[in-house]
Structures are given as C-alpha cells and as structure tokens.
C-alpha cells in the first residue's frame, strides 16, 4: 500500500522552476511527497499530448511550471507553452478530466517559497477533487 495519497507529475523547465524547486529544497521548505518532477529544458518542450499521457497513465494531477512570461531562458518558449497549455486546459473537461487536476504556473529561480506554496496548494486541490 503506497503511502503517498496522490501522485502528481511536474514538468519543470530547467532554468527557472527546477531551480526554484531546488531553492525551496535548499531552504528546507517542507512539501508533500506527492510530486514527481520531469526536468525539461523549457516548458516549450512540453507537448500537450505528454500531459494527457500522464493522466492516462494514472497521474492524479499534472503541474507545468516555467519561467515568468518575458523571462524565458529561450526568449519566448514559455509564450508558446502558455498558449498550448491554455488550449489544453479548455479541452480537459471534454476528455473527462477535471481541470482542477491540471495547473500551469510560473515560478522563477528565486521563488523558492512560492514553489513550496504551489506544491502545497496544488496537492491540496488535487486531493479535494480526486
């Protein structure tokens, strides 16, 4: 019997959010053990189909997080990501997936505390709807 109640897949860009998650760790900010992070160069590398794949494989939630708009390491990668993720979010209900189980956000390398908040809050939300 697994101990963690929910499993969330996180797709994080290497430059901002992954670094932010590291920073939260360096600062020992406690978070639920729900998240499994997949590191990517940029949220622009996140294919919406990959998100759907995660849901189909049984993920309780999917979190996509990258640099703030305008701060993308690759200039505009996260703008593409934002557009793709917004479309995806709107499609989820039609696919029978509660949109509350999906979250797209921005956390910079310096926002360790925000990262911890995001994980805490999203986990709480996923637990509620699952």
């Amino acid at each position, binding site marked *: 019997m697994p101990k963690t109640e929910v499993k969330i897949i996180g797709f994080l860009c290497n430059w901002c959010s992954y670094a932010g998650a590291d920073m939260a760790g360096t600062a020992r900010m406690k978070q639920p053990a729900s998240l*499994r992070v997949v590191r990517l160069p940029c949220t622009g*590398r996140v294919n919406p189909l990959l998100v759907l794949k*995660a849901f189909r494989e049984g993920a309780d939630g999917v979190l996509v997080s990258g640099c703030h708009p305008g701060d993308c390491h690759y200039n505009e990668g996260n703008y593409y990501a934002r557009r793709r993720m917004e479309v995806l979010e709107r499609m989820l209900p039609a696919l029978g997936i509660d949109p509350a189980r999906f979250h797209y956000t921005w956390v910079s390398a310096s926002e360790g505390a925000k990262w911890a908040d995001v994980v805490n809050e999203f986990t709480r939300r996923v637990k509620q709807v699952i």
Partner: protein
Amino acid sequence: MLGVFVCQCGTNIAATVSTDRVVQAAKSMLGVVHAESIQYTCSDPGQRAIIDAIQQKGLTRVVMAGCSPRMHETTFRRAIGRAGMNPFMLEMVNIREQCSWIHSDIDEATEKAIDLVRKGVARVRRQKPLQAGSSPVTRRALVIGGGVAGIQAALDIADAGIPVTLVEKSSTIGGNMARLDKTFPSLDCSSCILTPRMVEVKQHENIKLMVNSEVEKVRGYIGNFEIDIRKKASCVIEENCTGCLICQEKCPSKAPDDFNVCAGESKAISIPFSQAVPLVASLRKEYCRLFIKGKCSVCQKVCPAGAIDYEQEDIVVTEKFGAVVVATGFGLYDWKQSYPTYGMGMYPDVINALKYERLLSASGPTGGRIERPSDGKEPRDIVFISCIGSRDESVGRPQCCSIGCMYMAKQAILTKEHIPDSQSYIFYIDVRAAGKGYDEFTRRAQTDFGAIYIRGRVGKIYPRGGKLVVMGTDTLAGDQVEIEADLVVLATGLTPAEGAGQLARRLNISTDGQGFMAEGHPKLKPVETNTGGVFLAGACQGPKDIPASVAQAGAAAAKVIGLLSQEELETSPMVAEVNQLKCAGCFKCRDVCPYGAVEAQDARDGQVAHVIASLCQGCGLCNVACPPGVISLKGYTDNQLIAEVVEVLR
C-alpha cells in the same frame, strides 16, 4: 549494462531516504547490473567507486541519485568520461533538494526516491551517446556599464591583451562612485582614487570606449556573440570637443542636473562634472531650445572647436565578442510613493543619501558646504533613517541594502567634520557592518563623532515651525521618541539600474526577485550567469559596496580571460535533429525557433528541415511544433519523456 549509485550525502540524504532500500529496489529494475550506496559520491573516493564499477562491470549507462543535476552534473559527466564512457550516458536523479530536504517521513521520501530512480533508469536506457561539438572563439570582450566595476573589469581584461569595448549609457564613465564624497571604510576621497582609473580607460590601447551608448540586440552564444550597439546622437563631435565648457556657460536652456541628484541646475548642453571621461559635452535634445522651439544655435556659434553638429544621427555598430561582462550598477529606490508618512517629497529637507553625498562633496553644487535645500541654511540636527525601501515587505522589498548602515556612519562622521556643533541621530534596526574594519568604523561614528544611534524605525515626519518632527521609537528605551530635525537623510535601498530588466532579456540572463541580475549559483558561481559567456560585476548583481564591486569585477575579468584564452569551445550536444526521410517540409519548426537554427535543405522531393547545430540552443520548441514528430531534441526525445512518465506512475 546499467549502474545505479545512490548518494547518502553524509546525512543530507540518508537521514530521510533509506538509501539501502533504494539500492535494493534499483537492483530489480530492468537493465540494472550494479547498484550501491556511497557516502559522499562527489568526493574523490566516491568518484573512484563509480569509475571502478564501470570498469569492473562494464557499465554502459549510469544513474546517479543524489543532489540536483544543477549542482554536480558536470562533475559526474567528467568522472564517467574518465572511466572511458560517453559522458552523456548519465542520468542524475534529484533525491536531495527535491526529496530528502523537503520531506520528513522516511517511508514517503524513500518511496518517492525509488520512483525517481526508476524514472531515471527508464530515461537513461533510451539515451544515445552524444558528442559535444565545438566552435571557434572570438577574442574580444564587451563590458556594459562604466561604473567602478565596469572600469575595473575592462582594465583587467585589456591588461591581459584582450581587446575590450566598454559601453556606457550616460555621457561619462564613473557611475555612482563618481558622485560620492569620501568613501568608507578608509575615508579615501572618491574622485582621488577613481579619476586616475577613468583616465586609464580612456588611454588604454586595448579599450574602445563608447559613451551615450546602449546594447540593442544580442545574437549568438558563448564565444561567438554578435551584438548591435546604438550610439546616441549627442550633437557634439567627440574628436573635436576640448571640454572648454563655453557652450554650457552660454546655453540659455536649463535642464535637470542628474549627476547632482537635481540639487542645482544644469544646462541642455553640458559636461556632468569636471573630471568626466571623456571630457566632452553632450546635448540633451529634450531640453534644448533649438529642438523644442526651433531657435537658438548659441552653442554652435560660441564653440571655438567647431564641435557642434545638430544633424548628428544615432549610429548602430555591430561587433563580435566572445564574452560579455554586465556592470550596469544600481539606481536608488524612489521612496516618495510608498512612504507617504515621510511626506511624499513634499518636504524639501527630506532627501536621499546620494543627494546628501553631493552636498558633502567639495565638487558638489554647494562647494562642500552643507546647505539644506529649503532655505540654504546650515543644518544643526540631522536625522538619518535606515532601511527605506529595504527590509520592508510592506513595499515589496525584503532585501537589505547592505551599504546603508556603512554610509550613514560615514555621512555622520563627515557631517561632524563639516559642522562641529551639529548633532546626528541615526535610526537603525540593526547595524550591519560585517566587512573588515567596518564595525570599528561605525563605532567610531559614535565614540569619536558623537552620532547618536537609536534602535527603532521612524513612523512619521511632519513639519513644525520650519523644522521637521521625526516621530519614532527607541525600542531599547521601550518608548516613543521625537526629534526636531533640520534635515532628514533617508538611506534608500538599491534597485537595479533603469532598463536592467530589458538588458537582461536581451542577453538572455535571469533576474532575481528584486530585478537584479541573477548569478549562476550563490556560492559557487557568483560571477557567472545562466547564459554561458555572460558574466556579472558590481552592484548590478545585488547591492554592494566598492570593495565588493571591484573584487567581483576582477573575478569576472579572470573568467573572461580564461574563456577567451581558449581557441575553441565545446558546445552542448543536446540539440535538435531532423529525421529528414520523414520530414514533410512544413517548416513549422523554423517558425517557432527563437534562434533561427532551422534552415531549409534541398532534398529529392522538395525541401526539408535541417538544424544548424551551432545555433541550436536546445529549447525543444520545434520538437513540439512538428506535426509528424520527426524533429527531436537529443537527450529529451519523446521516447525518453514518455518513458519517464510511464515509469514514475507504475
């Protein structure tokens, strides 16, 4: 033939993750022939253990579960390279920053660590050997910003025989240090130590100085930047101007005096201060009568050197550089909007410390006599207030300005020297004076110069009979206090220089929560950025005093010299690649690529995409955009990512 190494990191990991159980679980994963737990894997014996295992068991792929890949990926790539493996057949699994350090339940953390290792195994099984490419290096450096940090970096690099272009936004180099009177902790006169260095820049054969200039566009990558620099028209022919100042004297149009923080007035054509480098006049069109009303031309008539050219236009030069040093310094926090209780700028005798610095300076607008702005009288009671727009979350600025405590002590000392019967009061929360000789310095302000230190923060300032009532608290006395002051000096926090965010975006480097340029790692990469070839020096990276700025500039210069002494540079092999046989030639990939790295190539039937590896930065945008999915990012292929997702959810 896969090996898994689980690092204990002393107790950093082992206290929360049962590394033994992770090793046990790893042994049963597909393809794993070796798994062990190591106390400190990055140490010499730790790396040896990996190399031994590779050589004894013939490993071809390695999973290293430990700290963040952002920490030690390069270390371990090198290690397995030394063992004769392809360095890219490594996957680092983060069970420290993103696991042991953020959880407290051993079972939960261990379960997660096992999931992550399984994910890493699945991913590295699909990894192909990659070959790092290489590209030639341009032996020339760009330094942006001509404050003391930029000056130091430029001189150090130039002294190593490398050509440097120093780009300065304003009409002279010197930056904020040129505005200071004497400097802590040794009370050296600022211009006495700075001016010779400014002149050296001007005279150095390897330095090309461009004032009134800004970086406009940046292309390329480490070793090979191509950068557009715009030199703004100043209506003065630099080579002709002798700095005689006749134009400034005769010019009828007043203009704000930024150098003196608006204390005193300047002219539309001016040289900001007498030691300016270059000592050349600049015309500001927005204040010039000729450009506003169409009539004047006085300066042209009086200039004995024929240096005035109203038709001058901006020029954009494009140059190639191998490395860039950012040294754009700082601005001061504008307190007026967020501290309404300090009068919002309604009281002329509430000023910021930089303006006070000009009032103290012998070369300042008052010739070194301290006069309060409202009536020109010499103040007797002077109140200094620390941490304005610093350490204050209510205005969104939690950071410590790191120099305020020191310069307030300095200014209190100088005030006493100027006006022996004056009394300085310093409101502080903590006296932060951690440098060498610094605490002794602030204590001297109290013992030898009679400054009274009051621990507490001021609540309100309001006028009473030509004076300012400063309402505060003395937390040590435990009571409210009130001072009738002649002058109030605010130690306002440091902000990034105006336009720093824009410049950061152009250079593709990150900024931190306060907008300062972000270093690569707070301890181990303090002058690097996340973008290869771009380095930081001085207060652009965070509030700093002169010694720290100069030290960082020297370090940045050393990095640049090291980089530019190489002939060729390794490039990341994690680039996109097209399966040209299946490419449909739609060029959706080319449309999204931010680096213009995709080009069309002729094929048998029509055109297909081709990635120029030296331009590709590996963002993966194309990979997602491609309808048939035939362009893929090496190291992050669809196969690998899907495998990670599937495995972690097993």
